[in-house]
């Protein structure tokens, strides 16, 4: 049995590389899955008690690329040659293009129902990383600075953000109004491990349309923090770490709120706001910031005097240029603690229950991070087909992509439950169009599962 589980896990992980998925959009409505509580504290699973398998509680991976799709960059022609499409790639890019990779891993997760209340406790580790690259930088090489980019402020604002932290959370929800209304709250204690925070990374490059002279101006602020002082402890990647030097002052908290409301017996509305929180980074902090953001470095060309005197010396001219750039775009280094917020997600949903085991859902999703709202909308069917099989099928629109079809499965054998959620299965078929992968898998042990608890309350019993 264990061997089969492992095999299943490996296959599931293999899907990650090619499955397009979304941000827990399918899981939100999987009423057979306890992990749905993580995206709405007011949600409850169909079991009175669950405990996730330590070590396999939940592995969640999210790859997100809001820039280009593979088909924009390469294709294969009739002669079986790889064809690179630089211009198509460039045109597909947005002003800022983000590649994100989040990995979270739950070590411990359990929950139980007590009268009208539901409690859960979860301990997990999370890594959120994001690399952003500007369209302008690619444009510099693909279309150059002499055509339509002449006179334009090209911003080479590369960014890299990474946050690794431990998350210890407790959730409590309770029903009100004769079980029509359920409210939930989750509190998390966060312990930061590593952070790279690109607060600002503007590097403006302009080519003047009259004489082609360059102007460069920077406004950069990057903060880093780590529990390990890699700069001063002789840390070498791959070497042994002296755990005595680890520090533990990177602390933070997060709150999540949720609600469900049974409007009429067949319609349940839900809403949640997840990960409203922050981490204060204080361990081994390094801040790198442009000393004078208003300062501009200008390059008009090599000095004619240097080129046309009796002993032309271009080396000194280039050195002078480099010196000027270095001094005008100089970064200063400080050690001030700083705060980063978590990417907060908002869910607004509605479910129409056909039977006590089947419903259709609509879900509006918004993720707010770095002053940008990334919206999505999902339509889903969610059903408990048999006592063994629970399924959700979703269709989402996200990142301006309309081919995100998701699947969620729970397979129960007695209390044993294996689950797999991948939002963007359609992307596997049309992987060239894919730009998102969201995948979650794990093993739970669920007890005293009953259909009447599936949606919201005992009222659903009438549906059968």
């Amino acid at each position, binding site marked *: 049995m264990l061997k089969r589980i492992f095999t299943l896990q490996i296959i599931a992980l293999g899907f990650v590389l090619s499955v397009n998925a979304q941000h827990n959009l399918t899981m939100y409505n999987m009423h057979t899955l306890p992990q749905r509580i993580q995206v709405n504290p007011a949600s409850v699973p169909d079991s009175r008690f669950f405990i996730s398998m330590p070590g396999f509680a939940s592995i969640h991976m999210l790859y997100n690329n809001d820039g280009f799709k593979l088909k924009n960059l390469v294709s294969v022609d009739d002669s079986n040659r790889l064809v690179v499409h630089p211009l198509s790639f460039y045109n597909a890019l947005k002003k800022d293009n983000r590649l994100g990779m989040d990995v979270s891993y739950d070590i411990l997760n359990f929950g139980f129902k007590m009268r009208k209340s539901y409690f859960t406790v979860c301990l997990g580790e999370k890594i959120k990383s994001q690399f952003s690259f500007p369209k302008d930088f690619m444009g510099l090489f693909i279309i150059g600075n002499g055509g339509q980019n002449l006179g334009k402020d090209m911003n080479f604002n590369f960014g890299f953000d990474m946050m690794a932290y431990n998350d210890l959370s407790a959730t409590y929800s309770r029903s009100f109004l004769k079980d029509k209304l359920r409210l939930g709250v989750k509190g998390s204690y966060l312990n930061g491990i590593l952070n790279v925070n690109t607060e600002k990374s503007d590097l403006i490059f302009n080519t003047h349309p009259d004489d082609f002279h360059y102007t460069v101006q920077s406004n950069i602020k990057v903060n880093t923090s780590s529990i390990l002082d890699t700069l001063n402890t002789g840390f070498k990647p791959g070497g042994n770490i002296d755990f005595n030097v680890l520090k533990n002052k990177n602390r933070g908290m997060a709150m999540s709120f949720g609600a469900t409301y049974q409007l009429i017996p067949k319609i349940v509305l839900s809403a949640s706001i997840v990960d409203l929180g922050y981490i204060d980074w204080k361990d081994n902090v390094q801040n790198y910031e442009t000393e004078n953001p208003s300062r501009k470095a200008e390059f008009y060309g090599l000095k004619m005097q240097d080129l*046309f005197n009796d002993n032309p010396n271009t080396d000194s001219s280039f050195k002078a240029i480099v010196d000027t750039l270095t001094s005008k775009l100089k970064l200063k280094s400080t050690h001030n603690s700083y705060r980063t917020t978590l990417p907060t997600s908002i869910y607004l949903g509605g479910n129409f229950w056909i039977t006590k085991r089947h419903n259709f859902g609509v879900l509006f999703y918004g993720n707010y991070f770095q002053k940008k709202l990334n919206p999505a909308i999902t339509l889903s069917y969610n059903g408990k087909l048999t006592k063994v099989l629970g399924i959700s099928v979703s269709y989402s629109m996200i990142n301006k992509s309309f081919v995100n079809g998701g699947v969620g499965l729970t397979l129960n054998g007695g209390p044993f439950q294996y689950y797999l959620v991948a939002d963007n299965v359609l992307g596997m078929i049309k992987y060239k169009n894919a730009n998102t992968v969201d995948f979650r898998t794990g093993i739970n042990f669920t007890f005293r599962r009953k259909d009447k608890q599936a949606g919201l309350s005992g009222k659903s019993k009438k549906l059968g």
Partner: protein
Amino acid sequence: MIYEIAKVFFKTIMLKKIKTLLYGTASVLALHSCMPEEFNTNGKVRIDEINPEYAIPLISSDLTLDDLVKKGGSFVKKYDDGFISLVYRGQIYSSTAGEVIPIPDQDFNQTIVLNSTQAIALSNGQSIVVSLQTNKSFSLGSKEIDSLWLKAGALVASISSEIRTGGSLKISFEDAKNLGTVLSVNIPFGYGGSTPVMANGNTTLAGYKWNMSKGGAGFNMVNIKFDLSLNATVEPVSAGNQMNINFGFKEMKFSRFYGYVGQVNLMNGGDTIDLSIFDNSSMGTFTVEDPKVKIIIGNSFGVPIKAGFTKLAGFTSGPGGFQTNITGLPNPLPVNLPTIAQIGQILYDSVMIDKSVSNIKTVINQKPKQVIFQTYVDLNPNGKLQRNFITDNSQINFVVDVEFPLYGSAKNFVLEREQSAGVALPNVDFIDNVLLRFTGENGYPIDLSTQVYLLDEAGVAFDSIFADKSYKFLEAAAIGTDGKVVSATKKTTDIVFDSQRAKRLNHLKKVKLRAELATTAGGGTYPSVKLYSNYKLGINIGIKAKFKVNNELLDSLGKK
């Protein structure tokens, strides 16, 4: 009703369809996710052609007159109102006094003879001291030393004695002292059983100040004292036994010389001043309204001096060359002498000639490439009229400034220069076109026409940048009623090289730059204009190139 139908539908047909869909989807995924076609090509890569266009600022300049004309020994002189002169400077220095007024070595001798009393005393076992004072004179020709400060040299002495005993000889020069210590040399000697008894000694002269004005002629006098100590002896000593003393002063170097150095021809030499503004001129007229020559004479000799120029002329060598003397220079030139209290200091005097006293304007407007001059300097030209004082570093120097106050006119004044250049372009047709952009801002009231010829290895022009040889690159800046520029003129010139023309740049080895200057005014006249220090000429050269990046380019790069 609809609800009931839907419920049945879901419980029966839809459930089966969903199961079928699930299995189907899983099968497709499993097959499809095995190998994306992008990873299953024949290894060849093709790229869609792109045409990136890059703009690069190549050269910039913000040229003041300093940058435009400064070269070698020239500089720009600014007046309080900002008006500027271009000054070409030449300098010549005389030898130093230490080099031209040597102190020759001096040799003297003296004999000391024992009388009978002294001989008997020695024979009776007594030691004795024989003292003698005398004076001698330095042999210096016409030079006369009142006093001398010595920085080097040596006093050397030797004895040859027939007196059969030992002892010592001290030779003292009480007029020569170093911080109170009298110059002297002590020569010990001993008798070894045979005669003559020989011995010698020496001492340095550095640091001694020697008064040679005591006694006799009042100069060159050397007062000497000998103290001969003889030990008692059992050897036979007779009256008439004598000691011969030879002494002298070798390789003397003075730091100060007081007296009279004689009549000395200190200098007969000259120099050449390059007027680089005319180096590259080939034609046209260039008129400076009021050129000047200023001669500054620096002197630190405390000696009457006659100095002047035997030649001052504008000069151009080679075919079409000429030499025209510049007149109006006083002869001799005024030379400022230091007082005795100023010994060692350099004092200056100067003289300036301009068009009011000289033909300098005519000469300069002939555009000579050089000014040549010859000088002479004589010390004590009229003999011994006063006492002299010099240091070893005393020197006389002439600074000759040929000054072009930049008030003048130019008409078709052409400057040409060749400059090495070269570009290496790949021999593939990946350049769509190249645009050279010249942006200029002229703050001078002078029209600038220009041409740049592109020369091959044989020096043959195969292309030129501008349309004609006198392309009006920048118009003269506008002048206000006060004669000063009120606004600069700007102009942008684009030169396009198509791919064929760009390819020819592979032949480029040199460029020949041609600049034509003119102080043009309305009506075709060429009035004189004044140039001020705040005038600038800004020229920026940028390049914009459009490329064809395609498979052919990649292939060619791959082959390399």
